[in-house]
Protein backbone atom coordinates (compact mmCIF):
# COMPACT_ATOMS: atom_id res chain seq x y z
CA UNK A 1 0.00 0.00 0.00
CA UNK A 2 2.66 2.47 1.14
CA UNK A 3 4.99 1.07 -1.48
CA UNK A 4 2.32 1.57 -4.11
CA UNK A 5 1.88 5.20 -3.11
CA UNK A 6 5.63 5.81 -3.15
CA UNK A 7 5.96 4.14 -6.53
CA UNK A 8 3.09 6.22 -7.94
CA UNK A 9 4.67 9.40 -6.64
CA UNK A 10 8.02 8.43 -8.14
CA UNK A 11 6.49 7.57 -11.49
CA UNK A 12 4.62 10.88 -11.51
CA UNK A 13 7.68 12.98 -10.69
CA UNK A 14 9.81 10.94 -13.09
CA UNK A 15 7.28 11.44 -15.88
CA UNK A 16 7.16 15.15 -15.09
CA UNK A 17 10.97 15.38 -15.30
CA UNK A 18 11.01 13.47 -18.58
CA UNK A 19 8.49 15.81 -20.17
CA UNK A 20 10.11 18.95 -18.75
CA UNK A 21 13.52 17.85 -20.01
CA UNK A 22 12.09 17.13 -23.46
CA UNK A 23 10.54 20.59 -23.57
CA UNK A 24 13.89 21.98 -22.55
CA UNK A 25 15.48 20.24 -25.52
CA UNK A 26 13.05 22.07 -27.79
CA UNK A 27 13.17 25.45 -26.08
CA UNK A 28 16.85 25.92 -25.23
CA UNK A 29 18.85 28.19 -27.51
CA UNK A 30 21.99 26.18 -28.38
CA UNK A 31 23.46 22.69 -28.37
CA UNK A 32 25.11 22.71 -24.95
CA UNK A 33 22.07 24.00 -23.08
CA UNK A 34 19.94 21.46 -24.92
CA UNK A 35 22.30 18.73 -23.79
CA UNK A 36 21.94 20.05 -20.27
CA UNK A 37 18.15 19.75 -20.56
CA UNK A 38 18.26 16.27 -22.07
CA UNK A 39 20.50 14.96 -19.31
CA UNK A 40 17.65 15.61 -16.86
CA UNK A 41 15.47 13.12 -18.71
CA UNK A 42 18.34 10.68 -19.07
CA UNK A 43 19.43 10.50 -15.45
CA UNK A 44 16.99 11.86 -12.90
CA UNK A 45 13.79 11.22 -14.86
CA UNK A 46 14.96 7.77 -15.95
CA UNK A 47 16.04 6.85 -12.43
CA UNK A 48 12.76 7.95 -10.86
CA UNK A 49 10.69 6.06 -13.42
CA UNK A 50 12.84 2.95 -13.05
CA UNK A 51 12.67 2.98 -9.24
CA UNK A 52 8.94 3.58 -9.48
CA UNK A 53 8.59 0.51 -11.70
CA UNK A 54 10.91 -1.47 -9.47
CA UNK A 55 8.78 -0.84 -6.39
CA UNK A 56 5.70 -2.29 -8.07
CA UNK A 57 7.41 -5.63 -8.63
CA UNK A 58 8.37 -6.80 -5.15
CA UNK A 59 11.27 -9.24 -4.95
CA UNK A 60 11.58 -11.06 -8.24
CA UNK A 61 13.79 -11.46 -11.27
CA UNK A 62 12.08 -8.42 -12.78
CA UNK A 63 13.40 -6.28 -9.94
CA UNK A 64 16.92 -7.34 -10.73
CA UNK A 65 16.46 -6.71 -14.43
CA UNK A 66 15.03 -3.23 -13.83
CA UNK A 67 17.91 -2.49 -11.49
CA UNK A 68 20.41 -3.66 -14.11
CA UNK A 69 18.74 -1.51 -16.79
CA UNK A 70 18.87 1.54 -14.52
CA UNK A 71 22.56 0.92 -13.76
CA UNK A 72 23.50 0.49 -17.42
CA UNK A 73 21.61 3.59 -18.46
CA UNK A 74 23.22 5.49 -15.63
CA UNK A 75 26.62 4.40 -16.94
CA UNK A 76 26.10 4.93 -20.63
CA UNK A 77 23.88 8.00 -20.98
CA UNK A 78 26.16 10.55 -19.27
CA UNK A 79 29.20 9.07 -21.00
CA UNK A 80 27.51 9.38 -24.37
CA UNK A 81 26.57 12.98 -23.53
CA UNK A 82 30.16 13.71 -22.53
CA UNK A 83 31.51 12.22 -25.73
CA UNK A 84 29.01 14.18 -27.78
CA UNK A 85 29.81 17.48 -26.06
CA UNK A 86 33.53 16.80 -26.45
CA UNK A 87 33.21 15.97 -30.14
CA UNK A 88 31.03 19.01 -30.74
CA UNK A 89 33.49 21.31 -28.98
CA UNK A 90 36.46 19.88 -30.88
CA UNK A 91 34.73 20.18 -34.24
CA UNK A 92 34.06 23.82 -33.49
CA UNK A 93 30.47 24.23 -32.32
CA UNK A 94 30.64 27.39 -30.18
CA UNK A 95 28.45 27.80 -27.12
CA UNK A 96 26.13 30.76 -27.34
CA UNK A 97 27.15 33.16 -24.60
CA UNK A 98 24.97 35.73 -22.89
CA UNK A 99 27.13 38.78 -23.57
CA UNK A 100 27.22 38.02 -27.28
CA UNK A 101 23.47 38.23 -27.26
CA UNK A 102 23.66 41.54 -25.45
CA UNK A 103 26.02 42.86 -28.06
CA UNK A 104 23.68 41.73 -30.77
CA UNK A 105 20.71 43.43 -29.19
CA UNK A 106 22.65 46.62 -28.53
CA UNK A 107 22.92 48.71 -31.67
Amino acid at each position, binding site marked *: MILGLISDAMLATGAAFVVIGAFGVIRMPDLYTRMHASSVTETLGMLLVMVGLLLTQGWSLATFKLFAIAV*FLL*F*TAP*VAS*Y*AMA*NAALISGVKPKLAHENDQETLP
Partner: protein
Amino acid sequence: MMTFFGFFTLTMVAVVAVATVVSSNLFVASMWFGIFSLLMASNFFILDAADVALTEAAVGAGVSTVLFMGALSLTADKESIRQGRRLLPIVVVAVVGLVLLIATLEQPRLGDPLAPVHQHVAPWYIEKTPEYINIPNIVTAILASFRGYDTMGEVLVIFTAGIGVLSVLSFKPKKRASISSEELGQAIRGLQHHAVLRVVGKLLIPVLLLFGLLVQFHGKYSPGGGFSAGALFAAAIMLYGILEGADRSAKAMPQKVMINLAALGCTIYTGVGVACMLLGHHFLDYNALWTDPQIAQYYGILMVEFGVGLTVTAVLIMIFNAIANRATY
Protein backbone atom coordinates in the same frame (compact mmCIF):
# COMPACT_ATOMS: atom_id res chain seq x y z
CA MET B 1 -4.78 2.24 -24.00
CA MET B 2 -2.24 0.02 -25.73
CA THR B 3 -4.01 0.73 -29.02
CA PHE B 4 -3.33 4.39 -28.45
CA PHE B 5 0.35 3.65 -27.74
CA GLY B 6 0.42 1.72 -30.99
CA PHE B 7 -1.17 4.56 -32.96
CA PHE B 8 1.22 7.09 -31.50
CA THR B 9 4.36 5.08 -32.27
CA LEU B 10 3.09 4.24 -35.76
CA THR B 11 2.47 7.89 -36.52
CA MET B 12 5.99 8.67 -35.35
CA VAL B 13 7.29 5.88 -37.60
CA ALA B 14 5.65 7.53 -40.60
CA VAL B 15 7.10 10.95 -39.71
CA VAL B 16 10.57 9.49 -39.22
CA ALA B 17 10.39 7.58 -42.52
CA VAL B 18 9.64 10.80 -44.39
CA ALA B 19 12.46 12.59 -42.56
CA THR B 20 14.84 9.75 -43.51
CA VAL B 21 14.06 9.96 -47.19
CA VAL B 22 13.94 13.77 -47.36
CA SER B 23 17.26 14.56 -45.66
CA SER B 24 19.94 14.85 -48.31
CA ASN B 25 22.76 14.45 -45.80
CA LEU B 26 23.28 10.70 -45.80
CA PHE B 27 24.84 10.73 -42.36
CA VAL B 28 21.71 12.34 -40.92
CA ALA B 29 19.59 9.93 -42.95
CA SER B 30 21.32 6.90 -41.40
CA MET B 31 20.75 8.38 -37.96
CA TRP B 32 17.09 8.79 -38.77
CA PHE B 33 17.13 5.19 -39.93
CA GLY B 34 18.44 4.16 -36.51
CA ILE B 35 15.59 6.03 -34.81
CA PHE B 36 13.21 4.44 -37.30
CA SER B 37 14.36 0.99 -36.32
CA LEU B 38 14.07 1.77 -32.59
CA LEU B 39 10.49 2.91 -33.13
CA MET B 40 9.75 -0.10 -35.27
CA ALA B 41 11.02 -2.39 -32.52
CA SER B 42 8.89 -0.74 -29.84
CA ASN B 43 5.97 -1.12 -32.17
CA PHE B 44 6.71 -4.82 -32.66
CA PHE B 45 6.78 -5.16 -28.90
CA ILE B 46 3.42 -3.41 -28.53
CA LEU B 47 2.07 -5.86 -31.11
CA ASP B 48 3.12 -8.79 -28.87
CA ALA B 49 6.13 -9.90 -30.90
CA ALA B 50 8.85 -9.94 -28.23
CA ASP B 51 11.33 -12.13 -30.12
CA VAL B 52 11.11 -10.00 -33.23
CA ALA B 53 11.54 -6.83 -31.18
CA LEU B 54 14.66 -8.25 -29.53
CA THR B 55 16.20 -9.12 -32.89
CA GLU B 56 15.29 -5.77 -34.40
CA ALA B 57 16.78 -4.05 -31.34
CA ALA B 58 20.08 -5.86 -31.65
CA VAL B 59 20.27 -5.61 -35.43
CA GLY B 60 18.62 -2.30 -36.25
CA ALA B 61 19.90 0.07 -33.61
CA GLY B 62 23.38 -1.40 -33.19
CA VAL B 63 24.71 -3.42 -36.10
CA SER B 64 22.92 -1.57 -38.89
CA THR B 65 24.01 1.88 -37.67
CA VAL B 66 27.62 0.69 -37.35
CA LEU B 67 27.63 -0.78 -40.86
CA PHE B 68 26.02 2.28 -42.43
CA MET B 69 28.53 4.56 -40.73
CA GLY B 70 31.37 2.36 -41.99
CA ALA B 71 30.02 2.44 -45.53
CA LEU B 72 29.45 6.20 -45.44
CA SER B 73 33.01 6.87 -44.37
CA LEU B 74 34.13 4.93 -47.46
CA THR B 75 31.75 6.60 -49.91
CA ALA B 76 30.32 10.08 -49.55
CA ASP B 77 28.17 11.55 -46.82
CA LYS B 78 26.35 14.03 -49.04
CA GLU B 79 23.86 13.20 -51.72
CA SER B 80 23.92 15.36 -54.81
CA ILE B 81 20.50 16.78 -55.52
CA ARG B 82 19.45 16.52 -59.13
CA GLN B 83 16.13 17.62 -60.49
CA GLY B 84 15.41 14.69 -62.75
CA ARG B 85 12.17 13.39 -64.15
CA ARG B 86 10.10 12.69 -61.09
CA LEU B 87 6.66 12.50 -62.56
CA LEU B 88 6.74 8.89 -63.69
CA PRO B 89 8.06 7.45 -60.39
CA ILE B 90 5.51 9.46 -58.43
CA VAL B 91 2.68 8.19 -60.62
CA VAL B 92 3.85 4.57 -60.32
CA VAL B 93 4.25 4.87 -56.57
CA ALA B 94 0.86 6.51 -56.17
CA VAL B 95 -0.84 3.80 -58.20
CA VAL B 96 0.83 1.06 -56.13
CA GLY B 97 -0.24 2.79 -52.92
CA LEU B 98 -3.79 3.23 -54.12
CA VAL B 99 -4.15 -0.41 -55.16
CA LEU B 100 -2.84 -1.59 -51.81
CA LEU B 101 -5.11 0.85 -50.00
CA ILE B 102 -8.16 -0.52 -51.74
CA ALA B 103 -6.97 -4.03 -50.92
CA THR B 104 -6.75 -3.27 -47.19
CA LEU B 105 -10.42 -2.34 -46.96
CA GLU B 106 -11.15 -6.07 -47.09
CA GLN B 107 -8.57 -6.89 -44.42
CA PRO B 108 -9.69 -8.05 -40.98
CA ARG B 109 -9.19 -5.29 -38.41
CA LEU B 110 -6.18 -5.36 -36.07
CA GLY B 111 -6.37 -8.06 -33.40
CA ASP B 112 -9.45 -9.78 -34.78
CA PRO B 113 -9.34 -13.32 -33.31
CA LEU B 114 -11.46 -14.58 -36.21
CA ALA B 115 -9.03 -13.45 -38.90
CA PRO B 116 -8.13 -16.20 -41.38
CA VAL B 117 -4.47 -16.20 -40.26
CA HIS B 118 -5.42 -17.44 -36.82
CA GLN B 119 -7.62 -20.29 -38.04
CA HIS B 120 -5.11 -22.58 -39.71
CA VAL B 121 -1.72 -24.05 -38.69
CA ALA B 122 -0.96 -21.54 -35.92
CA PRO B 123 -3.47 -22.97 -33.37
CA TRP B 124 -1.97 -26.38 -34.01
CA TYR B 125 1.52 -25.08 -33.20
CA ILE B 126 0.28 -23.41 -30.01
CA GLU B 127 -1.60 -26.50 -28.93
CA LYS B 128 1.04 -29.10 -29.76
CA THR B 129 4.19 -27.31 -28.63
CA PRO B 130 3.80 -28.35 -24.95
CA GLU B 131 3.07 -31.90 -26.00
CA TYR B 132 5.77 -32.53 -28.61
CA ILE B 133 8.58 -30.22 -27.59
CA ASN B 134 7.74 -28.93 -24.13
CA ILE B 135 9.56 -25.62 -24.19
CA PRO B 136 7.77 -22.41 -23.22
CA ASN B 137 8.82 -20.26 -26.18
CA ILE B 138 6.59 -21.27 -29.07
CA VAL B 139 8.52 -19.06 -31.49
CA THR B 140 11.75 -20.94 -30.81
CA ALA B 141 9.94 -24.25 -31.09
CA ILE B 142 8.59 -23.38 -34.54
CA LEU B 143 11.84 -21.74 -35.64
CA ALA B 144 14.13 -24.61 -34.77
CA SER B 145 11.93 -27.66 -34.92
CA PHE B 146 8.60 -27.42 -36.72
CA ARG B 147 9.92 -25.23 -39.50
CA GLY B 148 13.58 -26.16 -39.26
CA TYR B 149 13.93 -26.37 -43.06
CA ASP B 150 13.08 -22.67 -43.48
CA THR B 151 15.57 -21.64 -40.86
CA MET B 152 18.28 -23.75 -42.47
CA GLY B 153 17.66 -21.93 -45.72
CA GLU B 154 17.86 -18.55 -44.00
CA VAL B 155 21.13 -19.46 -42.29
CA LEU B 156 22.60 -20.49 -45.63
CA VAL B 157 21.42 -17.19 -47.15
CA ILE B 158 23.18 -15.27 -44.38
CA PHE B 159 26.33 -17.31 -44.95
CA THR B 160 26.15 -16.62 -48.67
CA ALA B 161 25.70 -12.89 -48.09
CA GLY B 162 28.78 -12.90 -45.86
CA ILE B 163 30.79 -14.67 -48.56
CA GLY B 164 29.45 -12.18 -51.07
CA VAL B 165 30.63 -9.19 -49.03
CA LEU B 166 34.06 -10.75 -48.61
CA SER B 167 34.45 -11.50 -52.30
CA VAL B 168 33.18 -8.07 -53.39
CA LEU B 169 35.61 -6.36 -51.04
CA SER B 170 38.51 -8.68 -51.86
CA PHE B 171 39.25 -6.72 -55.06
CA LYS B 172 41.96 -4.16 -54.66
CA PRO B 173 41.21 -0.89 -56.43
CA LYS B 174 43.33 0.04 -59.43
CA LYS B 175 44.04 3.56 -58.23
CA ARG B 176 46.72 3.95 -55.62
CA ALA B 177 45.89 5.27 -52.20
CA SER B 178 45.78 9.02 -52.23
CA ILE B 179 46.37 9.12 -48.49
CA SER B 180 49.63 8.12 -46.85
CA SER B 181 49.62 5.06 -44.64
CA GLU B 182 50.32 7.16 -41.58
CA GLU B 183 47.17 9.20 -42.07
CA LEU B 184 45.34 5.99 -42.85
CA GLY B 185 46.34 4.55 -39.51
CA GLN B 186 44.94 7.67 -37.92
CA ALA B 187 41.66 7.24 -39.69
CA ILE B 188 41.00 3.70 -38.50
CA ARG B 189 42.39 4.22 -35.03
CA GLY B 190 39.00 4.41 -33.37
CA LEU B 191 38.20 6.31 -30.23
CA GLN B 192 41.37 5.41 -28.35
CA HIS B 193 42.10 8.88 -27.06
CA HIS B 194 38.78 9.14 -25.21
CA ALA B 195 39.76 7.62 -21.88
CA VAL B 196 36.25 7.85 -20.40
CA LEU B 197 34.66 6.14 -23.37
CA ARG B 198 37.23 3.36 -23.35
CA VAL B 199 36.78 2.59 -19.67
CA VAL B 200 32.98 2.57 -19.74
CA GLY B 201 32.82 0.84 -23.11
CA LYS B 202 35.12 -1.94 -21.97
CA LEU B 203 32.90 -2.43 -18.94
CA LEU B 204 30.01 -3.05 -21.30
CA ILE B 205 31.72 -5.62 -23.55
CA PRO B 206 31.72 -8.55 -21.07
CA VAL B 207 28.19 -7.69 -19.98
CA LEU B 208 27.07 -7.74 -23.59
CA LEU B 209 28.74 -11.09 -24.22
CA LEU B 210 27.15 -12.51 -21.07
CA PHE B 211 23.78 -11.19 -22.10
CA GLY B 212 24.30 -12.73 -25.52
CA LEU B 213 24.96 -16.10 -23.88
CA LEU B 214 21.77 -15.71 -21.84
CA VAL B 215 19.76 -14.91 -24.97
CA GLN B 216 21.38 -17.81 -26.82
CA PHE B 217 20.88 -20.56 -24.27
CA HIS B 218 17.85 -19.24 -22.41
CA GLY B 219 16.03 -18.59 -25.66
CA LYS B 220 13.76 -21.56 -25.07
CA TYR B 221 12.27 -19.97 -21.98
CA SER B 222 12.30 -16.26 -22.78
CA PRO B 223 12.57 -14.13 -25.91
CA GLY B 224 15.77 -14.95 -27.74
CA GLY B 225 17.54 -17.57 -29.78
CA GLY B 226 20.42 -17.85 -32.16
CA PHE B 227 19.57 -14.92 -34.41
CA SER B 228 19.31 -12.24 -31.72
CA ALA B 229 22.21 -13.72 -29.73
CA GLY B 230 24.41 -13.69 -32.81
CA ALA B 231 23.63 -10.03 -33.39
CA LEU B 232 24.40 -9.24 -29.73
CA PHE B 233 27.78 -11.04 -29.87
CA ALA B 234 28.64 -9.23 -33.07
CA ALA B 235 27.61 -5.93 -31.46
CA ALA B 236 30.04 -6.61 -28.60
CA ILE B 237 32.91 -7.14 -31.06
CA MET B 238 31.89 -4.05 -33.00
CA LEU B 239 31.98 -2.07 -29.76
CA TYR B 240 35.54 -3.31 -29.27
CA GLY B 241 36.40 -2.39 -32.83
CA ILE B 242 34.98 1.11 -32.45
CA LEU B 243 36.75 1.74 -29.16
CA GLU B 244 40.16 0.26 -29.95
CA GLY B 245 40.37 0.56 -33.71
CA ALA B 246 39.13 -1.85 -36.32
CA ASP B 247 42.60 -3.25 -36.99
CA ARG B 248 42.71 -4.64 -33.47
CA SER B 249 39.28 -6.22 -33.70
CA ALA B 250 40.38 -7.83 -36.97
CA LYS B 251 43.48 -9.13 -35.19
CA ALA B 252 41.42 -10.52 -32.32
CA MET B 253 38.85 -12.03 -34.66
CA PRO B 254 40.78 -12.89 -37.84
CA GLN B 255 38.77 -13.14 -41.03
CA LYS B 256 40.03 -16.66 -41.75
CA VAL B 257 38.83 -17.94 -38.39
CA MET B 258 35.50 -16.15 -38.80
CA ILE B 259 34.84 -17.66 -42.20
CA ASN B 260 35.59 -21.11 -40.81
CA LEU B 261 33.27 -20.48 -37.86
CA ALA B 262 30.49 -19.36 -40.19
CA ALA B 263 30.90 -22.52 -42.22
CA LEU B 264 31.06 -24.56 -39.02
CA GLY B 265 27.71 -23.11 -37.90
CA CYS B 266 26.07 -24.15 -41.15
CA THR B 267 27.71 -27.56 -40.86
CA ILE B 268 26.40 -28.06 -37.34
CA TYR B 269 22.88 -27.24 -38.52
CA THR B 270 22.93 -29.52 -41.54
CA GLY B 271 24.98 -32.11 -39.63
CA VAL B 272 22.23 -32.49 -37.05
CA GLY B 273 19.80 -33.03 -39.91
CA VAL B 274 22.02 -35.63 -41.54
CA ALA B 275 22.59 -37.37 -38.21
CA CYS B 276 18.82 -37.69 -37.81
CA MET B 277 18.68 -39.24 -41.27
CA LEU B 278 21.48 -41.68 -40.47
CA LEU B 279 19.61 -42.74 -37.35
CA GLY B 280 16.67 -43.73 -39.50
CA HIS B 281 14.34 -40.74 -39.24
CA HIS B 282 13.59 -37.86 -41.57
CA PHE B 283 15.97 -34.94 -42.14
CA LEU B 284 15.93 -32.63 -39.04
CA ASP B 285 13.57 -34.95 -37.17
CA TYR B 286 15.20 -34.62 -33.77
CA ASN B 287 13.22 -37.50 -32.25
CA ALA B 288 15.93 -39.77 -33.63
CA LEU B 289 18.54 -38.35 -31.29
CA TRP B 290 17.29 -39.90 -28.03
CA THR B 291 14.74 -42.39 -26.80
CA ASP B 292 12.61 -39.80 -25.02
CA PRO B 293 11.26 -37.52 -27.78
CA GLN B 294 11.02 -34.42 -25.58
CA ILE B 295 14.65 -34.66 -24.46
CA ALA B 296 15.66 -35.37 -28.06
CA GLN B 297 13.83 -32.24 -29.23
CA TYR B 298 15.45 -30.22 -26.45
CA TYR B 299 18.97 -31.17 -27.47
CA GLY B 300 18.20 -30.94 -31.17
CA ILE B 301 16.97 -27.36 -30.76
CA LEU B 302 19.95 -26.52 -28.55
CA MET B 303 22.43 -27.67 -31.19
CA VAL B 304 20.61 -26.11 -34.11
CA GLU B 305 20.31 -22.76 -32.32
CA PHE B 306 24.00 -22.96 -31.52
CA GLY B 307 24.76 -23.40 -35.21
CA VAL B 308 22.54 -20.43 -36.07
CA GLY B 309 24.19 -18.24 -33.43
CA LEU B 310 27.67 -19.20 -34.63
CA THR B 311 26.93 -18.40 -38.26
CA VAL B 312 25.21 -15.08 -37.54
CA THR B 313 27.97 -13.93 -35.18
CA ALA B 314 30.76 -14.90 -37.55
CA VAL B 315 29.14 -13.41 -40.64
CA LEU B 316 28.33 -10.08 -38.98
CA ILE B 317 31.83 -9.77 -37.50
CA MET B 318 33.30 -10.68 -40.88
CA ILE B 319 31.28 -7.96 -42.61
CA PHE B 320 32.22 -5.40 -39.96
CA ASN B 321 35.92 -6.22 -40.20
CA ALA B 322 35.86 -6.12 -43.98
CA ILE B 323 34.15 -2.72 -44.13
CA ALA B 324 35.85 -1.05 -41.18
CA ASN B 325 39.36 -2.08 -42.24
CA ARG B 326 38.91 -0.97 -45.82
CA ALA B 327 41.33 1.81 -46.61
CA THR B 328 39.86 5.02 -47.99
CA TYR B 329 40.90 5.82 -51.54
